[in-house]
């Protein structure tokens, strides 16, 4: 049979010989290996002080985008909620009133938009489903919280601020 990779090793089922039976050579070899590991570079990041760099395609917390004039892009079409396999997204639509044109880009907008971060599996399907480029996944993750309700992110948590603070992108701010 052809192997998938050339890394497969046949299992050695021969009975142990004398040197293997007295265990000590193997134990000493093992001690040598662990002793070398004492001085190796540690793989851990000291988290709050030190942050692990994420790749640009990392799927973290969501943001709701605005257009160039600072109007909300989301029209509450509900495609993200439909696409969401974890059913983490709920929203309520509302109609834009006259005089609110500077707030919402189109006639319909999301009056309430909630993502339950405990349900979310960060698959990014909402991002793909959105026809208005309104929802994006960022490079940060949800911080710890003491209560479940702290993980239900509303519009005030998700919407990026306007105007953006000192050219800082929303990803870095979060």
């Amino acid at each position, binding site marked *: 049979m052809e192997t998938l990779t050339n890394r497969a090793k046949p299992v050695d089922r021969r009975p142990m010989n004398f040197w293997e039976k007295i265990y000590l050579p193997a134990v000493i070899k*093992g001690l040598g290996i662990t002793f070398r590991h004492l001085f190796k570079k*540690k793989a*851990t990041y000291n988290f709050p002080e030190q942050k692990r760099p994420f790749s640009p395609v990392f799927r973290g917390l969501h943001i709701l985008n605005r257009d160039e004039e600072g109007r909300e892009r989301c029209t509450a079409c509900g495609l993200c909620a439909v696409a969401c396999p974890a059913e983490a997204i709920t929203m309520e639509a509302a109609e834009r009133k006259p005089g609110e044109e500077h707030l919402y880009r189109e006639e319909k907008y999301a009056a309430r938009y909630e993502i339950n971060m405990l349900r979310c599996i960060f698959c990014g399907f909402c991002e793909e489903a959105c026809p208005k480029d309104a929802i994006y996944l960022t490079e940060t993750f949800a911080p710890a919280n003491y209560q479940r309700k702290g993980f239900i992110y509303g519009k005030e948590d998700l919407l990026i601020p306007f105007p953006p603070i000192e050219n800082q992108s929303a990803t870095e701010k979060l």
Partner: protein
Amino acid sequence: MFLEISAFLVIEKLILVAAILGISLFIAMYSTYAERKLAAFIQDRRGPNRAGIFGILQPLADGGKLFFKEEIIPEYANKFLFILGPALFMITACMTSAVVPWGSTLHIAGRDISLQVADVNIGILYVFGVVSLGVYGIMIGGWASNNKYSLLGTIRAASQIISYELAMGLSLIALLMITGSLSLKDIVEQQSHGVWYIVYQPIGFLIFLVCAFAECNRTPFDLAECDSELVMGFHTEYSSMKLGFYLFAEYINMFISSAVMVTLYFGGYNFPGMHSLHVSPNMLTILGVIAFFIKIFIFLFFFIWVRWTVPRFRYDQLMKLGWKMLIPLAILNLLITGALMLYPHH
């Protein structure tokens, strides 16, 4: 002279007992820290580093946590025995330190103060006796829990300690044939001018070391608590400080068995070149104590190092190693030692 018990003697011994108890508790406390830190380093992690600088206060935090945990006594457990178990284990762990000579004598205010609580002429037998009592702590605790995993752990602990004590005793007899004394003080004094007994008894030391691991219930012989099979073994049902006592006593056992091994095979408080040093006798004693503790720390490091290297033995392998390899080897060692001792006379 023999029956003269002065008030000074009582005070002096009380101070010594308190000091030794305090030191062994302190070292056991920081062994847990060393254990966690070394385990982390061996696994390329950082280990506890939040409580204090480098996590130095971690043992205190652990102890505090254990004190504040809920104390649970299972409903169908035998309440008296359930409490007696950890208490007995802790007491026997602390008792062994009484005969270990921590240093030679100090001269303070015209008195010779021996840094050994009791120079019993059967010192090593006392150590063995008390260590054997320790298994009762495990057995009573495990039995009183009324839990099948505890019971299995208990049975394992008992049979393991009995089997390994045999090989340990046999390896020790070979050493005692050379020393001709059971007093730990004498054994140390004999090593102060000559060579350490590790040179005469390398195989005996190896057997003793392996058995010490088994007696302390340390990996690779921690079959008694074997987390992957028996939940937590004999202390499955224990919580709060009673669990703390079991865990803590294990570290005290480790410390004491290191001390005994150093005393028997590595010259105790003697160190190379101590007779060519020109310092006052008191200074020499203090240096000796420091040397003794350095040797103990090396052993403690070794205990931890082995734990994070060697995986646990299977139960049948453990018994096979004990009965079919260590005991015959110990008897062979005994015969060779005896033959070599008789040879020069003929």
